[in-house]
Each structure stands twice: as C-alpha cells, then as structure tokens.
C-alpha cells in the first residue's frame, strides 16, 4: 500500500455542473475516503421566507433549482395548502402532475446526456439534449417559460391546458418515444458504455437502506421506495404504479432506472391526459396560516424524495420554510460509493447520483 495523498476535487471540475468540493484520500490511485464540503452557492433562500409572504415565496421556491423548478413550486404550494387546510380542484391536481412528470422526463434526459458526456460519448450527449428540447418546447407552449414556469399558485394553478394542446403534447411524446428507444439501446447495450459503468460505485441494498438513500440512486440498489406510490394527488388516480428498481447497485443500475423512468413518466402523462376532469383550476385562498401551525410534505422529485416543512406565525409571512432536497440525503450514499473506487471512476460515480448542489444549499 502506498502513501496516502489528499487530492482536492472541485468545486470547479469539468464533470460538475455545480460547485461541490471533495477531499479525496487516495492510496495507489484507489480512493480510501471522500470528504465532501458544500457552501459555495448558498443563497439563504429559506431565510427569505421571513420577508416574502406565502404567495410571493412560490416564485422564490421555484428558483431554488433550474431543473426541479416546477417540483419545488408544487411541493411548496402543497405544504402551504396542507398548513391552511386548502383543498385544490381535481383538474389542478392533474395539471400539476402532468407538468411535474414532464419535468422528470426533461431532467432524466438531461442527466443521460451529461452521463454520456462524462464517459466520453459526445454524439450521444447531443442526441439526448436534442430530444430534451422537444420537452422544453411543450413547456414553452403550455406555460410560456422553458425553465421557470410560474404556473403554480397556492390553491391550484394559474394556467389551463386545452384539448388541442393536450393532443399536441401526446403527439410530441409519441415522437420522443420512438427516438428515445434508439438512444436507450446505446445506454443500456453498448459495450463501451457497459465497460465504463458495470460494477462501478456499487452500493448494496442493506447500505442503501441504512444510508436512507432516495430516488433513482436508492432504487438502483433495489430499494423500492418512490413517493409517487403513496398515491398523493393525481398519482392516486393512476390505474397502477410500481417503482422501477434494479438490483445492479452500480452506475449501470442508476442509468438503467432513470432510462426506464422516462418511459414510465410518459405513460403516466398519457394516462392523466386521458382522464383529466373538467372544472376549475384554482380555489381562492384567503387568510394566513395560524400561529404555530405546522405541516410537512414529501414529493418525488426527479432526483428522489424531497421533504418540505412550513410553520406559520399568524401573519401572511411564514415563520419557517424548510426544503430538504434529495441530494442532501444522498451525500452520505455518495461518500460510501466513492470509498474503494478507482480515482478515474470518481467523476462517473458523482454524476450517477445526479447531484444538485443548488437544491442542496438553497
């Protein structure tokens, strides 16, 4: 065994879209320990809740992350609605879920592109992002925005989608499906991809459970936990929902889970569009959360379970808003996956947890 050396990794690194620092303790090119550090992009967004009323904060919540923007506005609104005992119209629940699943499709395809870029498959990266553009076009047509939509309000949504737009969405998704199948073949069957991902960054089911891992990161180790299976909102109206899992537990397993979840999300969107009820898209919300009232909520973001907590103080300003993102809880799993890996695999392993540092630090 050689002498232990500490190699700093990040916060600026080609594989990291966002700043994360790791001190990698290596011996003979093998990582013995990985010590993370964050805080390079902390913006104090949770603190802002003290000076923005509960309707204004929705616009702050969706700026926590550029990829999970819609999910954060939806999770925040659900928590405040729970806090104030507001029941939103069924059509609003369906619309929120359709946009949320579209966000998952674009997030996973974006990640697949980044993964392809990380293992040096440039053309595959470009194909993925070209497909993702078509999902962003749907967002632009239905909400007016490509990244920040601002369509969620406390009490429902502010925009409806009409039947013609639904037909167009289904047409676009069907087109994406056929192109996506070809891309999936490259990700799941190509020998060079498998050489780079098979057995890399393995985490057993027991470790995944002990480390409270969430999202595709946990499901790739066989952990069958997905918040959507709790049937909240429009997810409860689905004929069937089974979390997609893999037993591989390595980088390949994480890629496989995300690749299959894209098709699952498209199926969910098509089923919801077929059954969306007519009616109002929002209810008026008056008053303020009671002093000391508390509510918590969980939502399955593209990267996994996200926890929301709100406490009222009798005024229109919340006393506290807490958003615990999936990456925060997956940091422990990431450091475990890195221990014992080759130095050359570090970037691949970090990428396969799909870290979102903006979400983590808020």
């Amino acid at each position, binding site marked *: 065994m050689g002498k232990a050396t500490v190699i700093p990794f990040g916060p600026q690194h080609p594989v990291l879209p966002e700043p994360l620092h790791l001190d990698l303790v290596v011996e003979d090119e093998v990582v013995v320990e990985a*010590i993370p*550090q*964050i*805080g*390079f992009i*902390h913006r*104090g967004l*949770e*603190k802002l809740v*003290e*000076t923005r009323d509960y309707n204004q904060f929705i616009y702050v919540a969706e700026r926590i992350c550029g990829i999970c923007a819609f999910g954060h506005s939806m999770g925040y609104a659900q928590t405040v609605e729970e806090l104030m005992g507001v029941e939103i119209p069924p059509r609003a629940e369906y619309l929120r879920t359709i946009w949320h699943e579209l966000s998952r499709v674009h997030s996973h395809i974006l990640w697949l592109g980044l993964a392809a870029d990380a293992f040096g498959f440039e053309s595959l990266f470009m194909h993925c992002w070209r497909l993702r553009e078509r999902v962003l076009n749907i967002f632009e047509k239905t909400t007016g925005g490509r990244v920040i939509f601002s369509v969620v309000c406390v009490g429902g949504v502010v925009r409806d989608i009409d039947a013609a737009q639904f037909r167009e969405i289904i047409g676009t998704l069907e087109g994406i499906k056929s192109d996506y199948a070809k891309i999936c073949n490259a990700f799941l069957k190509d020998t060079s991809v498998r050489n780079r991902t098979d057995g890399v960054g393995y985490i057993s089911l027991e470790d995944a*459970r*002990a*480390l*409270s*891992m969430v999202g595709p990161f946990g499901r790739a180790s066989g952990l069958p*936990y997905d918040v959507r*299976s*709790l*049937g*909240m909102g429009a997810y*409860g109206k689905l004929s069937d*929902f089974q979390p997609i899992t893999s037993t591989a537990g390595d980088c390949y397993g994480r890629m496989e889970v995300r690749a299959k979840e894209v098709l699952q999300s498209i199926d969910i969107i098509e089923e919801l569009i077929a059954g969306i009820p007519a009616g109002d898209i929002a209810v008026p919300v008056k008053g303020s959360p009671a*002093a000391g009232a*508390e*509510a*918590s*909520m*969980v939502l399955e973001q593209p990267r996994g*379970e996200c*926890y929301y*907590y709100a*406490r009222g*103080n*009798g*005024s229109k*300003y919340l*006393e*506290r808003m*807490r958003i*615990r993102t999936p990456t*925060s*809880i997956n*940091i*422990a*799993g990431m*450091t475990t996956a890195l221990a014992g890996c080759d130095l050359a695999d570090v970037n691949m392993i970090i990428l396969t947890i799909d870290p979102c540092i903006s979400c983590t*630090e808020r």
Partner: protein
Amino acid sequence: MSAFTQTFAPISIADIPAMAADRKASGWRFVQVLAVNTENGIDLVYSFMKDGALENFKVEGVTKDDVVPSITGEFLAAFVFENEAHDLFGVNIKDIAIDFGGNFYALSQKEPMTVISPAQLAAREKAKKLAAAKAAKEAKAAAGESAAEASEASKAADMEAKLAAMDPEKAAKVRAAMEAKAKKEAAAKQAEKDAAMEAKLAAMDPEKAAKVRAAMEAKARKAAAAAQTADDAKGGE
C-alpha cells in the same frame, strides 16, 4: 399502496438517543433534521418515515448552552443536517460521525439563520399587535352585538305581548304609528349622516371632494339599479 400521514410529537433533548435507537430498530427511514429560530431558542425537528407515515419529533427551545447528542450513530445520513444545524443556527451537537467543526458550509457570516434584523423584529411586533387588536375588536363587537340583539328582542317581545292584549283596531293604529316613528328616526339619522359628510367634503381639497362626490353618486345609482332589478324580479314572480 400506503396512504400518506403525518404527525408531530414533542420530545426532550435527553430523549433523542432513545428515540433514534427505537426508530432504527423498528425499521424507520431517516428523513431529515431541521432547525427553527424562535424567541425561546432553537426548535429542532427530527423526521422519520415508514409505510407512508411521516413522523416529526420536535425538541423545543434549544439554547446555545445545551449539548444535543448526535444521531449519526444510528443514521449516518444525518451528518449533513447536524453540521447544517451547527453552521447555520449555532446548535451545539456533539459526537457527529463526520464533524466538520463549523466548516461544512463555506459561509461569510456566522450562524446566518439566527440573524433577525431590527426592521424584521419591528415588523413581527407590529403584525402581532395588529393580530391581537383585531381579535380583541372582533370579540368586543361580538359581545356588544349579542347584548344589543338580546335587549332589542326582549323589547319587541314585550310590545308584541301588549299589542296582542289590545283591541285589534287600536293595535293596528299603534303599529302604524310605530312604523312612522321608525321611518322618521331613520330619515333624521340619514340627514345627520349627510350633514356630517357635507362638512367633511367642505373641509377637503375641492378636487378630491368632487371625486368623492362622483364615487358616492355612482354608488347610489348602482344601489338604486339593484333595488329596481329586485323589484322587477318580484313583480315578474
């Protein structure tokens, strides 16, 4: 498919290790730890989940002198949140499995989440005072209204009893006289109100007074139109 439920339960600092050990032994999944800055100290909320049930355990009023035991022995993933509670709120947590000693978040300000600006404090005090004044006003109005209603109702009941005992013709005359008196009183009140408004308008800037007059006239026209519509509807029936 298990349904989602959530609960909040209070615990003390001394109960934290036993609570964590019990959750671990019963197969609960660790969700998070959060801190809330309050006037009585920091509140810590520990969350666990199992089969759709989300349990939140709340430790209230943790001060800077309190030493909070870490739960990373049972749930390693908690190290992120315990370091966060230390770095952002200044909570003194001991024996964290991976303790960054205040360097997990690279911050320029010490314990930023506990900072309450004077403007914010003043706004909070004002909001509290307003809420208290509103509640007191509502309670007073409710009490006054119920007392006035009761005395009015008892007066009306007495009069009705008297009228019932009278000769019917005389009773009809008394009723007519009472209605005329009520109308006269209402007209006098309205005249008094109009005179007060005129005095106010005379004291106002002429341009503003003209605007107020126009708004009042529009309101009166709207009310008259609504009354006319109601009359027409009655006539139609």
